[in-house]
Each structure stands twice: as structure tokens, then as C-alpha cells.
């Protein structure tokens, strides 16, 4: 009986752990995806700004557009955790 109790406890603990892992993966992987997307936009943005300073505001915005990906990841992980 005691063994069964321990088994249940282990199962519950690993359930929580897997949840946390899932949440971590969803933020981490989407973070990497955002980084990859922003990498090329960012370098193009710096280039464009060097050519013409007026576009700074616009390219700053273009650079943050892929941030949606990581925000979806964050939303998913929050929903998982709470």
C-alpha cells in the first residue's frame, strides 16, 4: 500500500515537472524562432538606418514584428502553468 502511495506521488510530481518542461519548451523554442526571424530583419534595419536615419522608427517596428511568435509561446506556457 505504501508503495502504491509513493508511486502516485511520483506520478503527480513528474506530471508537474512535465508541465513545467512543456512551458519551458514553448517559451524557449519560440524565443529561438523569434531570434532567427529578427536576425535578418535587424541587420537589414541597421543597414537601412545607416543609409537614411528617418526610417529608424519604422524599421524598429518591423524588427519587433516577429515578437508575436514568442508572445504566443509565452501565452501558451502561462496557460499551461496556471
Amino acid at each position, binding site marked *: 500500500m505504501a508503495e502504491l502511495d509513493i508511486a502516485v506521488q511520483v506520478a503527480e510530481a513528474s506530471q508537474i515537472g512535465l508541465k513545467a518542461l512543456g512551458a519551458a519548451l514553448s517559451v524557449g523554442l519560440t524565443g529561438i524562432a523569434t531570434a532567427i526571424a529578427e536576425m535578418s530583419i535587424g541587420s537589414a534595419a541597421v543597414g537601412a538606418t545607416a543609409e537614411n536615419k528617418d526610417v529608424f522608427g519604422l524599421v524598429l*517596428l518591423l524588427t519587433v514584428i516577429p515578437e508575436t511568435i514568442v508572445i504566443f509561446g509565452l*501565452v501558451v506556457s*502561462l*496557460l499551461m502553468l*496556471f
Partner: protein
Amino acid sequence: MFSPEQMSRILIAAPRNVMAPVIGELHHQRIFHIEDFIEDDSEEYQGYRLGVPLEGAGETSTELLRLRSVTSAFAIRPEDMDPSQMLSASRLKDQIETELPEIEKEVEDLLATRSALENQAKELENTIESLKPFAGVPVDLSLLHGYRTISVIAGYVPKKVDVGVAREEYYAESKKGNLLIVAVPAELRPDVERTLLDAQFQAVAIPHESGPAAERIAVYSVRLEAVKKEMAEVSAKIDDLRERHAGFLVACDELLSMDVEKAEAPLRFATTDHAFIAEGWVPTQDVSAITDGITRASGGRAFVTELPIEPGKDIPPVEYDNISYARPSQLLLDVYSRPKYTEIDPTLFISIVFPIFFGLILGDVGYGLILLAMSLGLGKVLKGDDIRMLLKVLRNASVSSIIFGLLFSEFLGFSIPGLESVLPSRHLNIGHAGGHGPAVPELMIMSVWIGIAYITVGRILGMVNHARQDHGSHRTRAVLANLGWILAMWGILLMVWSAFALPLMPDFTGVPPVVMGLSLPAISGAVMILLGIVFIAMDSGLELVELPTILSHVLSFARLVGVGLSSVAIAMVVNFIAIGMIIEPQLVNLSIFGVGLTIVGVLVFLIGHLMNTVLGMLGGGLQSLRLHYVEFFTKFYKGGGKKYSPFGMKRRFTED
């Protein structure tokens, strides 16, 4: 308020001999946006040519160029100057002729002296540098050069070398390198050099000086000091001149720029031998002012008339017409694109909703106060219209953060004691905080509601825009398409509500089914979606590809919660590390070591919150801007309007 300032198209025709007073009047009023005349074969302007600059344009330009060289030497920028007093233009004109050349001469002389002194100092420094290697050599430098049969080589070697010929040599080891000076018969020099090169020898030129090197260095150093002192004196004189004349110079700059602008205005007019025509735009409310002004200035010899506006052909320039609260937000709109003349100007929306979004994201009394202090403080230091506007936007945003901080009950990540959170709680279980954690589902639904509302508003504005701008059957289709998007979105919502019970949303799961297991709300939802799709497809079938954006754009508003929660999390982590992990354990029984650690804890606290403030400002600002630009503007806003830039300039330093 929601439309740009109304413009009227004005035509001025007058004889050429009143051109100067007419231009003067236009410049003075600063409301006439000149439509540049382009020489082409259009029927109405046959026989007209581009005008030539007024008399004296060349001289004024030259004068301005000379003045600019002085102001740039002084590094004076009009934007940084506070106009202390206005100088009278007529007196200034005399002064430009009498005083300006003197000042220019003085400055030129001083600059020439300074650059000569700079060169001298550089030369002295070089000489001292070349003497330094020989500072330790006990021989007179004159003994090292000037022989016909003997060659002297000097330089650094890694270790002592035997050059293998008859020689006199000096060798000294030092940290900088080992100095080797050898005197060898001139004809053996190439051999010796080869040997030395193999031993990684770095040659040093032998200075053409006489006397011990150390002594020479001392002499040159004294001279260098003297030159530097003289340079400082000249710089002080330049600074003094700058101090005395800066106000006068910027006033001259303004007056001359104004004269040049006036003199070159005819280049934008259509002229014949005896007359000229200027076309342009003025705000409709100012038409009578400009008509009266020109009639007065030309002595009644100019003809001013309002022309009809042909839609499509004449594109009026766009000037914002907003209440004073919304004006700073025009900057945010200009970053995207100025509205078209016929379009709705969304500045008021952005000026109200941007601070709300910012507050929802940052939502912390502490950070709000820091940003408020920053925006007010920087406003005292920084100059320039754009920066001022930006700081005002930041001020509004930080006030909103304070309000939302109270609603969320947050102060630097702590909950405010005795203040219950009115909105769903954002406090996380970090450290010893306890409690039930954040109410994430409620927060999410709240942000989704905001998204639904804002997108619906955007689509309604889209309907208005199309109704205003388009014609014929296209107009009906475009308006219906926007309605279709609204129907599809709300249809999806109705379907979702009848399938799932969600917090903070209507619950239709209990409604009894009518047909095919679908309840009444579900059926009406499905009908709305179908109708929406039909409306959208009627305008453009390709648009149907965009249907998933209904979901993604609404969910995108979840960033209001996501970014906000991450900022709360960082704040709480900083608090936990600084107070819970570093400071508190030390306070139990305080030791000297503990006091040190406590100070470290305070530093962690300060730096952590400083970084989070910067992150919060960037995150809050950029994310809420993005919500406007991407999720809101794409529904109705095109932009691309021409900026209204009236002829004339804002006078800050001179008056008539």
C-alpha cells in the same frame, strides 16, 4: 478632429514688379503651401517659364555661407539656443554689414592661429617621441650622425647581437626593448643590416640633434608646454567670442536664411516677362487673411482667387487638426505615415489608447513614477519639438501606468498593502509571496476583449473610410467587405461561446439545441460567418486567404498580458534575489560581512529595477505601438499624405 485641416487651392497672379512684396507677405503669414510649378507642355501654362531668383540672392547666399562657416566653427546650433531676446531685423541688417565682417575676420584669425599652434604642438610631440629612445644614451647626439666613412645604426633587438665586423657599439637593456647603437664602416653597412634583420632588429631613426638626448627632451617639453598654454588661451578667446556673439550670430543666420528663402521663391513660380503666377494651398479658414494680405502688400494689383479642387488630380497637403491633448501623438502617426487628405485621422484614438495599452503592460506605480520623473526632468534639459512631443507621450503613458499600477496593486513588483487589486491579479508565486498566483485566464480573456473591441472599431473606421473615398459599386463592395470581417469575427465568437464556457464571456452552452444539435446562438454565429465570407469574397476573393488573421490579430492582443506578466516576473525575481536571498538572511544576526552583503543586495535591487524600467519602457512602448500599427491600422488606414509645409519660417530670434 478625425479629419485633417480643410485646405483650399489658391492662385495668385500679379505683375512681376510686386513680386517681392507679395513674397514678403506670404513669408510673413506662413500659411501658403506652394505647389511647385513644373515646366511642361500643359495647355493652361503654355508660354510660362520658371522664375529667376530675386535681386541680391547670390550675395545673400554667399554671406550666409560665410556665416555658417563661423557658426560651425563655434559649434552653435540654433535648436539648442534659447531665444533670450528678439533682435530687430532692420537694426540687424545694418549690423550684418558693419559688425559681421569684423567678427568673421576675428574668428578666422583665431582659428588660423589655433590650427598653426596645433601643428606646432604636433611637431614638437613627434620630435620628443623620436628622442625618447636615446634618453638613456650618455653620448652627445651630434656624435651619432654626420660621418662620411662611418655609418651609425640604431634600433631595438630582442637580445644582444654580435654583428661580426669592426665597430663601436652601445647596448642597453630596458623594459621597452634593448637599444643597440652600432657605428660601422659605411661600406659594410648592408652586411650589418642583414645580420641585424635576421636577429629581428627594429630600426629607429637617429635624430638630427646635438647635445645629450635627455637635455633636448627637456628643452622641447618646455616649448610644448608653452605652445599648449598658448592654444588654451586662443581657445578661451574663441569661447569668449562665442559667448558674446552666439545670440547675434543665430539671429543673423535666421535673417539671412529668411532672405535667401524669399529670394529663391520665384524658382517655384510660373512667370512670363511681365507677370507671375503662384499656385498653392492654404487652410480654408485662412483664405480671407491671405487674400487681404496680398491685396494690401501689392497695392491692389495682385489677383487672388480660390480654385476648385479636382479630386484625383489635385492632392491637398495634410495638416493635422487635433485637440491639444492629442497633438503629441501626431509624432507616432508620422512615424508610420501621415494620413491622406480624404482619410480619417486616427491621432485621437492613438493618443487615448496608446497610454492605456502602455499602462496595461507596465501597470506599476513605482515604474510609473520613475518614468514620470524622467519625462518631466528630460523635458527641462532636452530641446527640439519632436523630443518634447515624445516626452509628452511618455508622460501620458507613465500617468496611465500609475493608474493601472493602483488598479493592479503593484509597486516595484510588491503588492501595495491594504489595496486589493481591482483588475485580475498579476502577482506570481515567486519567493515567499504566496497567494493564489496570477489570474491568467481572466487576464487573457480581458486582453482578448480589448482586441475584439479595437479591431471592431478599426473595421468600422474602414467602412467610413471606404464610404468617403470610393465611388460607385466599388464603394458598396468595399464597405460590405469590412462589414463582412466584423460579421465573421463575431460569428466565430458566437460559435465559441455556444461550445465552451469561458470566464468573463457570455455562456451559451446551456441554450437548448434547435436543429442538428446546434443552439440558436450557434446557428446565428454560423450564418454570420457565412455572410461575412460572402461579403469579403464579393470585394476580392484573394482576401479570403487572410481569414486566419481574425484569430491571430485578436490573440495578438494577449501580448498586453504576456509582456506585462514578464515585467512583473522580473520585478519579483529582483525583489526576491535582493531582499529574500541576500539582505534578509543577513539581518537576522548582523556582522561586518553581513553589512557588505546587504549593500550588494541594495545594488542588485537598484540595478535590477533600473533594467526592468528600461525594458518596461521599450516593451510597453513598442508593443502597444505595434498593436496600433499592425493590428489596428491595417483595418482602415493607408496613409501616404503629403505634409503641409507652408512657405516661411518660424522666427525665433528676430522680429520686424
